[in-house]
Each structure stands twice: as structure tokens, then as C-alpha cells.
């Protein structure tokens, strides 16, 4: 079966500095793929390269069998790919509803039914519908960021550290939501600091360190691998 999304031997970085060296990632339809690794490993750089925000120095990106290397982010959005940045992932001065509307910017027709569907998935946002998102809590903001991306019902979501800076109980809630989204059929690539939790819910995972793929395999295998445990899961 042809993979939904494939990043092939990616070299990428900023200016002349190469950060990511020869990394390949495959995402099959409906899969939840986790990328873990220490701070500065190049996880965000890799995701940004896949989403067309950075041009790869070498390597190709394939989506549904098409070469999309160098395609502009807004085109990728129209093709069914979406991206939730690690920081600043909501429009602070727009209300929750307006954020969702912007998420559906490229969608045809009336947005109201889709907004209702998304609010149904995040019931806690309903009563905050007309609150400016800068006045929301960290967890609520992440929910808006996810909901905004779901407005287009994407095929693949690239999510960069959704739990960064959240209280432990909220981390649980956000990751649980992501699993729900995946179970509803959306393929997901998630970068996560909470490596144990992320691997346990993932179909497959990659361990990135110093810009290179150190290990890859199913979530279970990686969790069980003593070398991964020692180096990347804190013992």
C-alpha cells in the first residue's frame, strides 16, 4: 500500500546550517505516528520542512503519491495536510469562533455546521465561543488550535508538542483528544516530550537525536527497547 505521506532522506536546516540529516518518515492512512527526542534534536525543524515552511536542502516529500516538495503551506492545506505549530498556534485577538472560522478559510459554503461539529468534539469551548482566545487557559488554547485545524477535516495533522507548558492533568486531556481525532480516521504525526505516553498511544514512532533517526519501530517495540528506555525515556 502506498503511504499517505512520506518524507524521504530529508536534509534541512536554517541558512547554511544543516540541522536534520537524512531523516525519513512514513505515515500510512489512519496512523498515529510519534516523533520523540531531546530538546534541539530537530523535531520541529523536520515538521516545518514537511509542511513547506522550510525548503529541504536535499530529499523529497510525497503526499498521496504526489511530489509536494517545496509546495506552499496554503496549497498543502487545500490538499488535506495541516499543521499545529508548537507555540503561538491560535490568533490571540480573535474569539474562539473566529479562530474556527479562520481555520475553515479555504472551505466552501456555510461554515456553521462544521463549527457545530468541531464544538461538539470540544464541549468545553462551547461556553467560551465568543471569548478572545488570548484570555483562555493554556489547555483551552490547545483545544482551539486543534479545533481550528479540524475545520477542514484534514487527512493528516502534523502536531508539534501539543502538551508543552500544560499542567499534567491537561496533558492527559489533550493527548486523549488527539487519540480520539486519530480514531475518527485522521492520520496524525505528533511530536511529544511526554515520550512514554506518546509512544504508548502511537502505532509507530521515531526517535530523533542530533538531527538523525536513532530508532524507529512500533510504539510497543520502542517502549520495550532498553536502549530507548535508558537514553530517551528517563530510565
Amino acid at each position: 500500500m502506498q503511504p499517505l505521506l512520506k518524507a524521504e532522506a530529508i536534509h534541512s536546516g536554517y541558512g547554511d546550517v544543516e540541522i536534520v540529516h537524512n531523516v525519513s518518515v512514513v505515515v500510512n492512512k489512519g496512523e498515529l505516528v510519534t516523533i520523540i527526542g531531546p530538546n534541539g534534536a530537530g523535531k520541529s525543524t523536520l515538521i516545518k520542512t514537511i509542511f513547506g515552511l522550510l525548503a529541504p536542502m536535499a530529499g523529497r516529500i510525497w503526499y498521496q503519491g504526489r511530489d509536494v516538495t517545496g509546495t506552499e503551506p496554503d496549497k498543502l492545506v487545500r490538499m488535506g495536510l495541516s499543521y499545529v505549530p508548537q507555540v503561538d498556534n491560535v490568533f490571540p485577538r480573535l474569539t474562539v469562533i473566529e479562530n474556527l472560522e479562520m481555520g475553515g478559510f479555504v472551505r466552501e459554503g456555510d461554515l456553521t455546521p462544521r463549527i457545530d461539529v468541531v464544538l461538539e468534539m470540544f464541549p468545553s469551548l462551547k461556553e467560551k465561543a465568543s471569548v478572545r482566545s488570548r484570555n483562555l487557559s493554556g489547555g483551552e488554547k490547545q483545544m482551539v488550535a486543534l479545533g481550528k485545524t479540524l475545520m477542514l477535516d484534514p487527512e493528516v495533522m502534523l502536531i508539534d508538542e501539543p502538551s508543552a507548558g500544560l499542567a499534567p492533568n491537561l496533558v492527559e486531556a489533550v493527548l486523549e483528544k488527539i487519540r480520539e481525532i486519530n480514531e475518527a480516521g485522521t492520520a496524525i504525526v505528533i511530536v511529544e516530550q511526554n515520550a512514554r505516553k506518546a509512544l504508548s498511544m502511537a502505532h509507530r514512532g521515531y526517535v530523533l537525536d542530533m538531527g538523525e533517526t536513532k530508532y524507529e519501530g512500533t510504539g510497543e517495540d520502542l517502549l520495550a527497547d532498553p536502549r530507548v528506555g535508558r537514553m530517551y525515556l528517563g530510565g
Partner: protein
Amino acid sequence: MIHEFIVNGIALGSIFVLGAVGLSLIYGVRNFANFAHGDILTLGAYLAFTVNVIFAWNWVSVAPSMAVATVLLGIAAAGLGGALGLRLFFRARGAPPSPRRRGLPLLFLLVGILALGISLPILNLVRLGISEVALPTGLLLSGVTAIIGAGLAGVLFEHSIFRHLQYRGPVPSLIASIGLAFILQNVISAIYGTDQRFFSVSSGVGLDVGAGIVLTMVKQYMIVIGILLVVLLHVVLRYTKLGKAMRATSDNLDLARVTGINVRWVIIWTWVIGAGSAAIGGILLGLNAQVKPLMGFGILLFIFAAVILGGIGSAYGALLGGFVIGITNEVSKALLFRAGFDTAWSPAFPFAIMVAMLLIRPEGLLGGEPLVRWGALRASLSRFARRIRGLRAPSR
């Protein structure tokens, strides 16, 4: 007598409002202070002036009651146009920006303003009969030419200059805009000369607003158009797809891009709306006094003060800021005169208010975001300095 200064201040403030709106919007989506904005005002005034000397543009005399009726009718017409437009927009909500729909917000803006301009002569037609009234060809043509011309000029500046500087921080764009300001001033001087010019209009009939104050026709228009434009702009920003996308882009351009918002389209409409309202301001400024090459540059700092006071990106902030700066400037003249000082000191007062605002509440009265992001400005400045040093350093 102080009343009169307040009224003058409101009229002058309207011009600041018209300038502040565009400056603030452009700052929002492009992140730099456009020093050429005053000269876009001037450009608008000269464009209108050019049409005005070719086609006769004249006010028609009306009785005060008629003037009031006219203004009300104009507002009603604009409101109707706006409401109709809104209905269309709600129906189109969420639709992709097709070329037809993209133009709607600006169209409503124009319709509203034109409704105001048209209603006056029509009323007079009804009242005086066809023989006595010149049809306002000149009025319409001058205004529309200036708005469209300035809007196109804004798009041209964006495409030829600012687009290429967008990833280099606020300083290169800012310096380029200062250069553009001088270019515009000198091109205008070269074409029209540096003499003061006057629109060919008769003064019309004033409106007695009580307390012995008679508002000239031009001042009536200044005040009404200033307020009307802000209300329309607020409606556009709050309810239309373009307006929401403008606010989103202004909040976070990178996020807007990855969300799939057509950022180029947003930026272009921001220039059209910003430059178009500046042109209206320029025409009113020229009507109120005279047309000259430095007219816009001369009030640029007042416009900045209005933006800082009101807060970036807020339409009502621009309204409030413009009026406060305008009124302070005029009223301080009266106070200085009474106290026996030279009235030339008056601008010190509005700018004192501006400085105080920057120190106490840098995000302005109604804005959500500081105008001056010191950190970003410093980073950009040092990057710029490094580049210049790099240019001077001997190559090894």
C-alpha cells in the same frame, strides 16, 4: 469662543482619523510604521485636484435644514447599503474568496461614502429644480479617482518595495518608506510645482449648530465622513471574511499562512483600504485649507500620535485618537492665546499626550498590542547595523 476651537478640532481630528485608520491597518499586517502614509494623503488630494480643475466641482448652496436632511439621508443610504452588503456577506460566509466576493467590503465602503456625496445634490435637485443645480460630475469623479488612484498606488508600493523587505524586520521597511515619502513629495512638486493650490469650489452654506458656531460645508463633510468611515471599517473588520482575515494576519502572519489564509490577498486589500481612506483625508484636508506638496507629511506625526493614543489595529481607537489629538491641538491654541503665548506652540500638547501614552500604556487606549515592540525593534536594528558594518568591512 472655545466652542469654536473644539469644533475645529473635531474637523481636523477627522482627517487624523482617516489617516490613522490606514496607518494602523498597514502596521498591523505588515509590521512597520509607514512614513509615506502622509504623502499618500497628499497624492489623493492632488489626484482629486487634477480632476477638479478639468471637471468643475462645486458645492451647491443649501439651507441649514437641508444640510441636516442631507447628512441624515446620506447616513441612511450608507446604512442601507451596508445592511444589504452584510446580508450578502453572511450568506457568503465561509465561501472561498472568489474575485467577485473579494471586492465586496471595499465596495460597501465606497457605496457608503458615495451615497453621502450623491444625496446632497439630489436633494437640491428636488428642491431647486434642474436648472439651478450643476450635477456633481466633478465631485464624484474627483473623489473616486483619488480613492482608486491612491489605492492602486498603495498596491504598487507593496509590490515594488515592501514585499521584498518583509522578512527583514521592521527597520528596512520603515527606512524604505521614508525614502518613498521623499520621492512622492518631489515627484508631486516636479509635476505641480511647490505653490499652494486651491480646489475650485464655492464655499456652500454653513450649518448653524448653535452657540454662534457655523460649520462650513467642508467641515460638515469632514466630521460626517470621518465617523462614517470608521463605523463602516468596524463593520468590515468585525463581520466580513476579509476583515477577520485581516485581524488574523495582523495577529500572526505565519500562523495565518499555515492556516491557509490567502495572506497576499489580505495584504493587498489592506493597502487599498488604507490608502483609499488616506486619499479621502487628503481631499478633505485640501478642501479645508489648500493643496501643497508637503500637506500630508506635515500632519504625519499627528496621525502617528492618533494611532499611538488609540491603539494599533482598532478602528474605534483610531477614531478616538484622531479626535483627541485634533481637539487638543486646537483647544491648546485657544488656551495659549488667552495666556498670552504664541499659538505656534500648540502641537506640544497633543505630542505630550502621545509620549505620556507610550510611557503609561504602550498598547494605546483601545488596542491590544503595544505599538512599539522594543525587543523586536532592537533586534531588527542590530541586524541592520551588522549588515551595514558588513558592507563596509574590507572583503577578505
